[in-house]
């Protein structure tokens, strides 16, 4: 038995997280009759899918020992840009232009984040916090208070449509998830991400291009935020500069509950999925149970702290 313990231990974290998820799920099934309805489950999954998209990006940054607070603002700015582009022609062509513009700008924001962290040596928290303010400011400047809405049918399909009865956001999130999971587990880039996050000095001594890896990670996080922005704007059928204020928080919470360590190098994509699900289930469950919405915010805070505590105790025992 002892022989297998060393192999089992790393998997135990995921296992205990899955158990927590199952317990929450089952208790909701028991307490709330409306929870297990197909409509509600689909609803939960759809909400989870957006959280998940953003959490995956932030988790990448956390894996290299950083963080990305700018994703909410990135979503706001790119969504405004889409509105601007769309207004020009109100056609499929302007939609494609808009989408391309969104992705390009999100990549640019990621580059700025990476630049501030790698070349200006700013702590990731501060760098992305500052960039967040700048980006949000730009979003306000660009709209001067306007709200863009009434996009074309084909654009609204991205966030509101269904394929084989499955909402598009879920499909997009799953595809994204598979790509990132493959990237982390099966590519040299993924190996570098873990190496840099686990021990930056050792990565450097091994000839791993640390700076390039860091910048790429922040670009990926922003790009994913851009994609989430497309889905969100489409679903909302509107673009305004105030959206996404709490997105970074939610994403970080999901990643933290999912066992992505703030110190880097620890955690996996499956954990983030579980984390996003737990987060959504808790708030969905509270709504179904009629918990006052004023209480809900605070209770999710308790969930986050508890899960991180449990996680830390587990990792203390490990060493």
């Amino acid at each position, binding site marked *: 038995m002892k*022989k297998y313990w*060393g*192999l089992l231990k*790393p998997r135990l974290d995921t296992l205990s997280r899955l158990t927590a998820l199952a317990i929450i799920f089952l208790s909701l099934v028991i307490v709330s009759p409306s929870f297990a309805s197909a409509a509600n489950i689909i609803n939960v999954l759809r909400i989870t899918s957006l959280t998940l998209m953003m959490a995956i990006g932030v988790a990448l940054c956390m894996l290299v020992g950083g963080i990305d607070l700018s994703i909410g603002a990135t979503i706001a700015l790119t969504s405004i840009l889409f509105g601007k582009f769309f207004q020009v022609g109100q056609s499929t062509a302007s939609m494609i232009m808009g989408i391309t513009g969104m992705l390009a700008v999100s990549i640019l924001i990621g580059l700025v984040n990476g630049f501030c962290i790698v070349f200006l040596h700013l702590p990731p928290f501060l760098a992305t916090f500052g960039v967040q303010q700048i980006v949000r400011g730009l979003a306000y400047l660009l709209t001067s208070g306007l709200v863009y809405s009434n996009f074309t049918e084909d654009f609204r399909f991205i966030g509101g449509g269904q394929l084989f009865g499955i909402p598009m956001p879920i499909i997009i999130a799953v595809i994204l998830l598979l790509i990132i999971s493959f990237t982390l*587990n*099966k*590519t*040299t*880039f*993924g*190996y*570098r991400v*873990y*190496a840099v996050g*686990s*021990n930056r*000095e*050792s*990565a*450097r*001594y*091994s*000839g*791993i*291009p640390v700076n390039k890896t860091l910048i790429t990670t922040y670009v990926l996080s922003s790009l994913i935020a851009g994609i989430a922005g497309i889905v969100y704007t489409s679903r909302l059928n509107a673009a305004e500069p105030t959206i996404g204020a709490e997105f970074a928080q939610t994403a970080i919470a999901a990643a933290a509950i999912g066992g992505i360590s703030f110190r880097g*190098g*620890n955690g996996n994509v499956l954990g983030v999925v579980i984390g996003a699900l737990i987060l959504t289930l808790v708030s969905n469950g509270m709504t179904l149970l009629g918990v006052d919405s004023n209480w809900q915010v605070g209770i999710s805070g308790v969930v986050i702290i508890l899960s991180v505590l449990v996680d830390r105790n587990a990792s203390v025992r490990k*060493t």
Partner: protein
Amino acid sequence: MENTEKAVEPFLKVQNVCKEFPGVKALDNVSFDLCKGEVHVLIGENGAGKSTLMKVLSGVYQQDSGEIYLNGKKVEFQNTRDAQLARIAIIFQEFNLVPNLTVAQNIFLGREPVSSRGVLDRKKLNADAQAILDSLNTGISATDKVELLGVAHQQLVELAKALSFDSEILIMDEPTATLSENEINTLFDTIFRLKARGVSIIYISHRLHEVYKIGDRITVLRDGQTVGTRLVSEASMDELIRLMVGREIQRERIREENTVQESMALEVRGLWDRKLLQDISINVRRGEIVGIAGLVGSGRTELAQTIFGIKRRSKGYIALFGRELEKSSPGKCVMRKAGFLPENRKEQGLSLNLPIRTNIVHAALSMLFPMGIVRRKKEKDIAENYRKRLRIITPDTKRNVSNLSGGNQQKVVLAKWLATESDFLIFDEPTRGVDVGAKEEIHFLIDDLARNGKGILVISSDLPELLTIADRIYVMREGRIVKEFKDSHVTQEEIIAFAAGGVVA
């Protein structure tokens, strides 16, 4: 030097002090004394027990047995505060200053003068601090921020802080290690001034020539034992070196033949960095094992780091396998088939929370998987291959490196560099913290690598280690190469003489 003082009962007396750490006897029956107004120099190789003795005297550690007498009275220090109250102060190599506070705030940290109304008395604070600084002739202003001062001045602030406790005994650990020639002279002046005031000083040093400038008596420590105390005026350099090294431990030489080839692996000419390294020229041929000896702080590690592009050079020529390396970086070196096994495995060599097999492919990622897609099977096979070849003891290479013992961790670092098929390897302290068995295995491996035509550069504080495996040895001191021994017929004494500065280069 006054012989009259010697007759007086010593001010501080250490008798038969022992201190054991798991696995090592750091202090073994150490006896030592210090007179009023004396500068007593303590020398010994790395790991001889100097630091442990100092930490016992300053209350950081408690001795397992033995007594300490101060002014004829037995004392016991439970913590550093006790030692402070007994007026013993220590100045470590690493300063204990808060950089963003002023000099005065640092000197009286935690003991700031308070006015009758309970408010900080800034005027008195600055005046008191300035008085101490002036008494040392430092020229430092009490209101300067510490971070704006150079190393030498920071050291003087540490001195002032020590004196603010009215310390009667001052312990200085390698005080000149980071100072320039001029700064050293200033420090020595200060020491003479303190001596004249009756302060007794224990001065720890590696540098033999300094001993003659400031010491009254000298005590040599070796392997945790005091091997002799001499009047500086009566001790010859040769004798001191003999005492430091002790009997030659004849170790079996592992390398049977020198397998050196014609072609160059590494060539360095006129290498400088901004801080320490001065005009370094060395070379290593394929199939050759070259050692670098030197005391801690002599710049050995910095040299390796500069070659490998971890630290920047300010000028100089570096070539790998005959091709110049204009700007070195670890990535470039890896591509040019050079590897570096750093001194601190845990900090610089391994990702402890990642699997053994992943660590093994880290340096070779782009070589093994040029398409960017990792093949798990290949990763596993490579890891299994090195597990068998290097005899890494673990039930499964999927386990995290943190589960391994020191020797096995070192083998993982070695496997990482063998996986890149490097033809030139730098080993920085390859066997530090490794048990005897694993040590020998690593020596045989290094020999084997050289036999297979790889060029090897070994940095080691363990002289017998260098004598067992090196074909040629460079000695470094204060950032320079001071001697090259062209073959392995050399004794530890000869090496120490150059490393500690007993011989003018």
